[in-house]
């Protein structure tokens, strides 16, 4: 589904990713772990198309298409969706409005036509319930005045409504208490499907107790230095990243 090959990325002249290679197949859940500054968030940002990242070498393909040639919105329309670590506030724009605009933009791009309003409302209400969110969320401005936990839940809500093929979640667990994390993890787990992949970027192993990944990659200094299964995350928790770095060196 997603193929990242020898990816080199610089930000303001500093090379952050230094030859990263990663393959994600449909149905898989991958976790990228690593110390601060290793380039974890850079990877998902580049895949989503954020400005300010210069790809100097390498390729990213998604279902055979060259992702780097696509506009930001085209990537989303193709089914690549990024859940933000720090979701942005958009004053005056209702949450429901953003959801609807996003869903319909994606549907129209795929030639499916806009979703009729009653069907849309039904869908959103169902997903809201799943995320244990009150209907009043829909009428509030996007992320404005949301607590950290509410913002994260809102990101997952968007995923549930938009149903991407590849959901990328950047530090979705940061700033969450244990109850909120369970709700978020439940939401993510409900996304698991044979035709969908999930890429989790996280600093801590704790999230992976709730969302058990098929593959864990350790990212250090711009490269994946080790790949394993869920057990690897536990080892990391016990020994820290330094242990890995040493074993690789």
């Amino acid at each position, binding site marked *: 589904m997603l193929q990242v090959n020898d990816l080199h990325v610089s930000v303001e002249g500093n090379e952050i990713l230094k030859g990263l290679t990663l393959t994600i197949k449909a149905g898989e859940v991958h976790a990228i772990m690593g110390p601060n500054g290793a380039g974890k968030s850079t990877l998902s940002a580049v895949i989503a198309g954020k400005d300010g990242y210069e790809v100097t070498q390498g390729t990213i393909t998604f279902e055979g298409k060259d992702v780097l040639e696509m506009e930001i919105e085209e990537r989303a329309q193709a089914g690549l969706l990024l859940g933000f670590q720090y979701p*942005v506030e958009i004053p005056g724009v209702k949450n429901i409005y953003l959801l609807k605009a996003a869903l319909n933009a994606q549907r129209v791009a795929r030639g499916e036509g806009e979703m009729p309003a009653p069907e849309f409302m039904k869908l959103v209400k169902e997903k809201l319930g799943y995320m244990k969110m009150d209907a009043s969320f829909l009428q509030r401005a996007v992320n404005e005045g949301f607590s950290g936990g509410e913002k994260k839940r809102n990101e997952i809500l968007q995923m549930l409504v938009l149903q991407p093929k590849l959901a990328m979640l950047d530090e979705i667990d940061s700033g969450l208490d244990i109850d909120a994390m369970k709700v978020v993890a439940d939401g993510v787990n409900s996304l698991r499907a044979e035709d969908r992949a999930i890429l989790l970027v996280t600093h801590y192993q704790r999230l992976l107790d709730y969302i058990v990944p098929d593959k864990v990659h350790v990212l250090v200094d711009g490269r994946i230095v080790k790949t394993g299964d869920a057990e690897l995350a536990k080892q990391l928790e016990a020994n820290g990243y330094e242990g890995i770095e040493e074993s690789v060196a």
Partner: protein
Amino acid sequence: MASEEMEQLVRREYKDGFVTDIESDTLPPGLDENTIAFISNKKGEPEWMLEWRLDAYRQWLKMKAPSWAHLDYPPIDYQSISYFSAPKRPEDRPQSLDEVDPKLLETYEKLGIPLHERAALAGVAVDAVFDSVSVATTFKKQLGEAGVIFCSISEAIRDYPELIKQYLGTVVPVADNYFAALNSAVFTDGSFVFVPEGVTCPMELSTYFRINAANTGQFERTLIICESRAQVSYLEGCTAPMRDENQLHAAVVELVALDDAYIKYSTVQNWYPGDENGVGGIYNFVTKRGDCRGDRSRISWTQVETGSAITWKYPSCVLRGKESIGEFYSVAVTNGRQQADTGTKMIHIGEGTRSYIVAKGISAGRSNQSYRGLVKIGPRAKGARNFTQCDSLLIGDKCGAHTFPYQEIGNSTATIEHEATTSKIGEDQLFYCQSRGISEEDAVSMIVNGFCKDVFQELPMEFAVEAEALLNVTLEGAVG
């Protein structure tokens, strides 16, 4: 996103209309007492009105153009302006929509303006056209039954001299400021509204429906009076782009609200802003003031300003009556090389008076805009309260926004709150929306409309819808 792209995104061309050829019955450029006598005579005015104009003119001669605004424009040569031109003869106008610039029509289409109104807006000779005449006649009848007077200011001077004498110039005195004095001397058009005691005007009044209003005057004069417990909502301007050969516009609007009266005045202004270099755009120097003369009266200004090369405009409220309320809701959008210095003045004189200010400025391109607001609390305005919120949104990195809040507090029981924010249209916000599959253009319009929501919700319904469409067209990228 690179800043050039950002610029591309907000660049727009003004879809200008036709250019007219022949004027008839037009005064040669120049201004002196003869010019004023000519205007007064043309309008069939009584002697006292001429004297009033001449008095204004003589005071204007002694005044100087204000220089305090954050605006940059060459000195205006008042002798090079023609102060009277009769409405164009039908045969000099485009005879049908086929003769109108298709781009202008395209804009009307985008703004959702009904077909039959497009002709009038585009300046097509309307005599033979459509229902607007009958619509207006129906309105006149309904208004007449309610006792509401709604006519041109010239008609009012002829037909209701007592009301004019009683109220004209009492809110904005002839020598109030340079442009107001000029207007007082030479005004040629404008509206007059009188709503008698206890009457709620049965419909929203709009210049749009006033016949002969198609060619808006260069020096408009509007006077609206609400007697005790009367109410009116007045809509000025329209969202359609308006082309005018007159570069200088200096209007005066006076509102008078007596006890428990409520006047809601909404404006959508979309004059020609000039080309990319700002050449040929309209200078819009307006004096708008409402007098809450009665107790518990309320005056509310709502404006959406997107046009003009230069805007100099401060709709204000004088809160004289006890517990009277003044409100100002404003969205100003500048793009290209537009300049706007706008804001409001809330003058609290009476006890327990309240004012509420929400000003939203959006700057794009190389434009510059300033919010300039004065909140003045007099010594007798016990317990007066003001809330001010002004927010600026910058699109791109070549534009500017400035805030000049002034406060003069003359007594210690007043409560003043002021909030101000300046934000750049977040590349982060844009990325967030786009990464959900929403196109860049749609994302910009969504963010901008969200930013303006507090003000849009104050607009009468149809205006609000039009204003949203207008913003989208205004900030459209590769126009068309």
